[in-house]
């Protein structure tokens, strides 16, 4: 489904991605771990060409994203959902308009079909009552849920999540993680999740990679990574475990 080959990205000489390569199989949930500033979000944005990589290839569904023309890229993007860190809901539109926006622009659906899809995703995120609210009236967790609903409304084959649980309390964070898994099963999607939340990763991940200084330093099953004797991983995950033990909900 996804193949990243030798991806490089630097900002003003500061290397952020330094030859990142990995693959994600169809219907797999891949979690990208790493401390803040290690290039996780940049990796995600390069995958969908919100940022241009300096070199390397990003192959999604057999197409090299880095070489696609804008029109072809936009066609491919219709099959990709992206949940932004702050949900990125359109402030000037109501929840309904936010959800209808990608449908109106990309699909020729009747109003009845659109309503059906809107109700389906709102039901999936348990926020049917928020349909006519404005984003400013929603809490952080609700915004994330609506953002998630907007991302999956087009039935994407691939979902990219940028820190889906950042800024949320532990309970909401766990709910969002579970919701991601439920939606993944319901919509049969492949997912790449960027996070530094171990709890979220434990719920979601089939496989994980750890980024450090722009390079992949470990790859494999999340349980193996957490129990690894590698000093870097030990240090990274021990901090997370301390955070968990300091009051996170298991």
């Amino acid at each position, binding site marked *: 489904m996804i193949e990243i080959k030798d991806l490089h990205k630097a900002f003003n000489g500061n290397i952020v991605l330094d030859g990142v390569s990995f693959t994600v199989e169809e219907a797999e949930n891949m979690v990208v771990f790493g401390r803040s500033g290690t290039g996780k979000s940049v990796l995600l944005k390069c995958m969908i060409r919100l940022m241009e990589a300096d070199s390397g290839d990003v192959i999604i569904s057999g197409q090299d994203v880095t070489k696609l023309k804008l029109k072809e890229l936009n066609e491919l993007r219709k099959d990709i959902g992206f949940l*932004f860190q702050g949900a990125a809901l359109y402030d000037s539109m109501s929840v309904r308009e936010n959800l209808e926006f990608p449908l109106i622009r*990309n699909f020729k659906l009747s109003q009845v079909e659109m309503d059906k899809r809107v109700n389906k995703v709102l039901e999936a995120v348990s926020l049917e009552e928020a349909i006519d609210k404005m984003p400013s009236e929603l809490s952080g967790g609700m915004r994330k849920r609506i953002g998630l609903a907007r991302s999956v409304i087009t039935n994407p084959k691939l979902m990219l999540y940028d820190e889906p649980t950042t800024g949320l309390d532990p309970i909401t964070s766990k709910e969002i993680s579970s919701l991601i898994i439920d939606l993944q099963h319901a919509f049969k999607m492949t997912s790449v999740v960027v996070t530094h939340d171990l709890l979220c990763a434990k719920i979601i991940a089939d496989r994980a990679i750890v980024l450090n200084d722009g390079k992949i330093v470990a790859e494999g099953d999340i349980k193996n990574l957490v129990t690894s004797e590698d000093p870097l991983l030990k240090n990274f995950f021990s901090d997370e475990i301390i955070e968990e033990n300091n009051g996170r909900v298991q």
Partner: protein
Amino acid sequence: MNSVLHIFVKVKDHFIINQKLNLNITSNTDKFLTRTEKSVTDFFEMIAGLFQFSFKFLKEIFIPPYEVEQIRKHMIELGMKTLPIVGVTGFILGLVLAMQLSPVLKRFGAEAFLPGSVGISIVRELGPVICALIFAGRVSSGIGAELGSMRVTEQIDAMEVSGVNPFRYLVVTRVFATTFILPILTVYVIFISLIGAYIAVVLVQNMTWDYYLDRVIFAVEFGDAIPGISKTFVFGFIVGIVGAYKGYTADSGTEGVGKASTSSVVVSSLLILIFDMVLVKLTLWLWPTVK
């Protein structure tokens, strides 16, 4: 011997102090030059960016889908938002202009020319420019802040990811709306200004509205109105494109939004005045009858 040594120490100290002062002057000069160099570079980068942005606009405007509904929405929204403030400004402008001109014309025994001179001033220059400047202050900053905030909260990225061209949806529609709503607002401002001027005229002269209007229409030629109104299309474009450019390219953070909003007003107002100068010269050159 001691006094010689004392003098030597004094001279040495003086030399060191001077050297230190010189060093400070040099470092301050360096800082000033670096700052100036940066400002000049930033300015030219902005101009180049604006040109590039404008070319992109001209390219995108012809590519479907045409966001007619969005353009209509922005035209109504921006027009309604600016209508009261330009109306009040226009009224005061006409009133004050007539009040100021009246004693001056009286001095030369040319009071009868008051409606005509006020009309020409408002139609040819003051109405379009004042309206454009007020519009820039109200709308350009609004567009800059709105798009800037969409940029920093990743709403523009979200639009791009969902396969929608955000430039066409957000920029083209707004610039199109500002370009075509400003001339309409200008006609309104001219009309309100003439009413304001009439009130001032009535205060000093016994003149009916019909006579006043007749004098204005007699003085203002078609050749005065067309260039005056036409240049507001350019001003409207400037207001829209500068606001959109500043917002669309805003730096991250709330500071970036603030900067986008403020600099939109400054740059668009400055460009309106510069283009006014160029367009007046161009009009006089291309259309000598309006001399």
